[in-house]
C-alpha cells in the first residue's frame, strides 16, 4: 500500500496553444470530473452564448474546488489505471517564466504543447530549452488543434520536423510526438478515426509509458548540509548530513571531501526510527559518521575516493538562463550557490547569448531577463563541481543577485585558473603523506583550540605586520599556540635557492613554500598568522588550505581583529 505509484508531470507550451484543453480532456476521459460538471459548464456557456472551452471547465473547478481533489490553483490531479498523476500547469506567458521553471523543476516528465495551426512559437522553443537545462529527460510533444488543420498529416509532419530539428540542436530527443485535438479528444485518451495514419500511443498511454525512476547517476556525491553534534542532549555522534545527489555510500567506504580534500572512512550510516542501514542512496536525506574525525563544514562535497573525481577550480564555463529583473552583466559580482556551497563570483565573460526566437547566437555584454547564454564565471574561492555530461546534479548552480535567485545554470567546461598544477601537486602530497600518530582531535583537546591560518591582508602601510604581532602576542598570552610567519622570513630562509626578485614565477613559488610550512604548522596544531599585500593576486590565497580566515585590515583597531579571531576559534 505504500508503493502506490505517483508521478508529477509538467505541461508547458506557448500561451493559447491549448494546455487547458488537453488537461480538461484528460480529466473528462479518465472520469476524473465530478458528475454532471461538464454538462453544467456547457449549459452555462450556451446560456451566455459563448462557445464551450475546456479552459472554462478548469476555471469552474478552481472556483469551487471542495478539497482540491481534482484541481487547485496550480495543479491537477487524476488517476490512470496505472498510477496517480499530478499535472503542474506551467503558465505560458513569458512573465511567468519563474513559475514555469519552479513547476518544471518538480516534475519527472513533461508534456509540451504546440498549436498545429500556429506552429512552433518562441515559447515552444524557450520551454523546450529550459526543460532540457532543468534536466527533464522525458518529454512528449503534443501537436494540438489538429482539427483546425483538417487532421492533415503533411502539415503535422512539417511541425514535427521543425521542432525535432530544434530539439536535436539543443541535444534533446522527445520520447514521442502525438497529433491531438484536445477539443474533440482525438488521441488524448482514445485513438482517433480522424487520423488513422497515426497508430502510436495516445496522450494517456504516453503518460503511462513515462518511466518513474530517479536518474541513476554513478559517482557518489553528497553536498554537505551540516555536521551535527548534539552533545547537549548527551549525543556524541558527529554526523555528516546531506541529501545524496548521486550514487551511493556504504560503511567502510573511503570518503574524500572537496574542495578541502580531507579524507576519512564511513563508520556508520545514521538513521532515526528505522532498520539499521549499511548504505545510503541517491535521493535520501542521509547522514553518516566517520572513522577518523576531520574538520569539514557545510559546502563541501563528499565523494568516494575510488570513483570519478569532481572538478575543482575557480573558473568554468556554463550555460545559464536568466530570470533576474536586472540584466546579468560582465564583471559584476554575484553570489553563486552550487549544492550547499555559497561563494562570491564575477561574470568574467558573456560568451554568447541565445535568441530563443530564432536560435541564433548573438554577441552581447549583458544577458536580459528570460534569455539563455553561455558565460564564464570566476569564483572567489575554489569550488567542487561536475561537468553536466558526467554528473548532472552537481553541475547545477543558481546565481543570486540582490538576495534573489536570478538565474540557473549548468557547468559545461572547467577552465584552467592557473592553479591546476598546484592542485595536482597537493593531491600527490596528500596521497603520500605519512600521518601523525596523534589525531587532530587529540591535539585539539591538548591545546584547547583548533589549528587555523589567519591571513591578514591590507594595503602597504596599513599596519598588517603590527596587527599580526599584536594578535600573535594576545593569543600566546591566552595560552594558545600561535605563530606569526612573515613572508620575508620564508624568502630569506627556505627560499634562498630562488630569486628574491618578485616576478610572477618566483612570487608564486615563495607563496607555495609559505603555504607548505603553514600547512605543517597547522598539522602540528598551531594557529599561523601570515600577512599579504592586497595587491597580491587573489589566487595566492588558495594556497592556504584547511581552516583559513582572511582579515582585511583597513584601520588600526587591532583589538577588533583580535576579537574576530576569537569568534572564529569559538565556532
Amino acid at each position, binding site marked *: 500500500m505504500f508503493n502506490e505509484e505517483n508521478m508529477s508531470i509538467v505541461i508547458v507550451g506557448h500561451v493559447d496553444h491549448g494546455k487547458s484543453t488537453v488537461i480538461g480532456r484528460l480529466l473528462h476521459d479518465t472520469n476524473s470530473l465530478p458528475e454532471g460538471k461538464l454538462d453544467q459548464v456547457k449549459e452555462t456557456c450556451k446560456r451566455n452564448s459563448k462557445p464551450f472551452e475546456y479552459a472554462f471547465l478548469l476555471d469552474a473547478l478552481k472556483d469551487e474546488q471542495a478539497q482540491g481533489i481534482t484541481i487547485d490553483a*496550480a495543479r491537477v490531479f487524476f488517476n490512470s489505471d496505472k498510477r496517480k498523476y499530478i499535472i503542474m500547469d506551467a503558465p505560458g506567458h513569458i512573465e511567468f517564466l519563474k513559475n514555469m521553471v519552479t513547476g518544471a523543476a518538480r516534475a519527472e516528465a513533461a508534456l509540451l504543447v504546440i498549436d498545429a495551426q500556429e506552429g512552433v512559437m518562441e515559447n515552444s522553443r524557450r520551454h523546450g530549452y529550459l526543460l532540457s537545462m532543468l534536466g527533464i529527460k522525458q518529454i512528449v510533444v503534443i501537436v494540438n488543434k489538429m482539427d483546425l488543420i483538417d487532421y492533415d498529416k503533411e502539415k503535422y509532419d512539417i511541425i514535427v520536423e521543425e521542432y525535432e530539428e530544434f530539439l536535436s540542436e539543443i541535444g534533446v530527443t522527445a520520447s514521442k510526438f502525438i497529433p491531438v485535438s484536445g477539443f474533440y479528444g482525438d488521441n488524448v485518451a482514445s485513438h482517433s478515426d480522424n487520423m488513422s495514419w497515426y497508430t502510436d500511443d495516445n496522450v494517456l498511454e504516453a503518460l503511462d509509458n513515462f518511466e518513474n525512476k530517479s536518474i541513476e547517476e554513478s559517482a557518489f556525491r553528497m553536498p554537505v548540509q551540516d555536521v551535527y553534534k548534539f552533545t547537549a542532549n548527551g549525543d556524541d555522534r558527529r554526523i555528516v548530513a546531506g541529501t545524496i545527489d548521486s550514487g551511493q555510500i556504504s560503511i567502510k567506504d573511503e570518503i574524500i571531501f572537496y574542495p578541502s580534500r580531507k579524507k576519512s572512512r564511513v563508520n556508520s550510516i545514521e538513521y532515526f526510527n528505522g532498520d539499521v542501514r549499511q548504505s545510503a542512496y541517491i535521493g535520501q536525506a542521509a547522514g553518516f559518521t566517520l572513522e577518523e574525525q576531520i574538520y569539514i563544514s557545510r559546502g563541501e562535497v563528499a565523494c568516494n575516493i575510488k570513483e570519478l573525481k569532481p572538478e575543482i577550480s575557480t573558473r568554468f564555463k556554463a550555460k545559464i538562463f536568466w530570470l533576474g529583473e536586472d540584466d546579468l552583466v560582465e564583471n559584476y559580482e554575484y553570489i553563486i550557490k552550487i549544492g550547499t556551497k555559497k561563494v562570491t563570483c564575477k561574470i568574467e565573460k558573456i560568451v554568447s547569448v541565445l535568441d530563443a526566437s530564432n536560435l541564433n547566437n548573438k554577441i552581447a555584454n549583458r544577458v536580459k531577463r528570460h534569455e539563455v547564454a553561455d558565460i564564464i564565471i570566476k569564483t572567489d574561492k575554489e569550488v567542487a563541481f561536475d561537468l553536466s555530461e558526467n554528473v548532472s546534479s552537481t553541475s547545477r548552480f543558481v546565481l543570486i543577485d540582490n538576495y534573489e535567485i536570478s538565474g540557473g545554470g549548468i557547468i559545461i567546461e572547467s577552465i584552467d585558473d592557473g592553479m591546476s598544477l598546484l592542485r595536482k601537486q597537493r593531491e600527490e602530497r596528500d596521497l603520500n603523506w605519512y600521518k601523525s600518530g596523534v589525531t587532530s582531535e587529540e591535539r585539539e583537546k591538548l591545546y584547547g583550540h583548533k589549528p587555523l591560518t589567519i591571513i591578514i591582508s591590507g594595503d602597504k602601510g596599513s599596519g598588517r605586520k603590527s596587527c599580526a604581532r599584536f594578535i600573535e602576542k594576545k593569543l600566546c598570552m591566552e595560552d594558545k599556540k600561535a605563530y606569526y610567519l612573515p613572508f620575508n622570513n620564508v624568502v630569506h630562509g627556505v627560499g634562498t635557492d630562488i630569486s628574491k626578485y618578485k616576478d610572477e614565477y618566483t612570487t608564486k613559488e615563495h607563496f607555495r613554500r609559505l603555504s607548505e610550512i603553514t600547512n605543517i604548522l597547522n598539522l602540528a596544531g598551531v594557529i599561523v598568522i601570515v600577512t599579504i599585500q592586497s595587491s597580491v593576486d587573489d589566487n595566492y590565497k588558495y594556497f592556504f588550505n584547511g581552516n583559513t580566515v582572511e582579515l582585511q585590515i583597513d584601520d588600526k583597531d587591532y583589538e577588533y581583529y583580535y576579537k574576530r579571531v576569537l569568534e572564529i576559534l569559538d565556532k
Partner: protein
Amino acid sequence: MSNKMTHLDKLEARSMHIIREAYANFKDLGMLWSIGKDSTVLVWLTRKAFFGHVPFPLVHVDTAFKIPEMIEYRNNYAKEWKIDMRYGQNEEALANKKTFSDGNCTRIECCQILKSEALKATLHGTGPRYRFNHETNEYDLEQNPEPFTGVIVGVRSDEEGSRSKERYFSPRDKANDWDVGNQPPEFWNQYKTDFAPGTHVRIHPLLDWTETDIWEYIQREDIPMVSLYFNQGDGKRYRSLGCYPCTFPIESSSKTVEEIVEELKAGKLKTIAERSGRAQDAEDGGLETLRKDGYM
C-alpha cells in the same frame, strides 16, 4: 536493500532536506506546533532530519480554548522528546473577555484575536512567551524574548486553493504580506535563503503532502497522535483540531490509524472537506482571511 524510493520516501527526503536548509540558514528559527497531525508529522520529520533531536524551539499559540487533551499531549511529548517548547497567548484579550465564547465577538474575530494577533506577538517577541523548564516541568515567562526570523510551518498545498501557489521558502515583508504574484523561483533544491534585513521567511516542508500521505506516514512511522483523532466508541472523531467552542467531530468509526487510512483511501470522506468541523471556516472569508492575516 533496494534503493527504489517510494512516494513517502521521496516526500520524507525532500522535507528533511528543507528542514536542514532552514536550520543552516536561519539563526532565529522556530517551528509552529499546533499539536495537530500535520505539525506533529513536521516535528517527527525534524527528529528524522537531526537524528532524534529537535535543535530549535517549537512554538505553540495557546488560545486558552484548546481541547485539554491537546495541551496534555503537548507537555508530555515536549518532555519526552526534549523539546525547547514555547507558547504564547493573548492574555490581554482573555482578561478582557474579548472572545467568541464570552459572546463578545464573532468566531472569525475571535480567531484573529486569539490566534493571528497572538501568533504575531509570540513570533516577534512583543507578547508574553513562556518556555518549558525541563527541570521543574513548568513554563517560565521568557525574559527578553527574541523575534524569530525563520518560521517552519506545516501547511499543505491541498488544504486550500491559494496554498498550491506557495513556495517551500516563502518570504514575508515587514507588514507580514505575501506577494503571490511575484514569488522566488525554486529549483534544484535551491531556495530563497538570502534576505534583506527586516524580512522574514515562512518555510513549508509539507507543501507536497496530502492528507492521505500524512496518515500513511503516521502509520508507517508509528507516530503517536493525540487521541482526539480517533473514535472512542461514540462513532465520532476529530478530523482537524482546534478550539473546543468552534471545532466539532465528524461521523466516523475509525479507531486506529489503519482505519483512518482505509477511510481516506476508500473515499468515504470525499464529499466532506477536511476542515468541515471548523466552524470559523464557514463564516465570511474564513480561512482565506485568517491566512492572509498570518494565521496558518
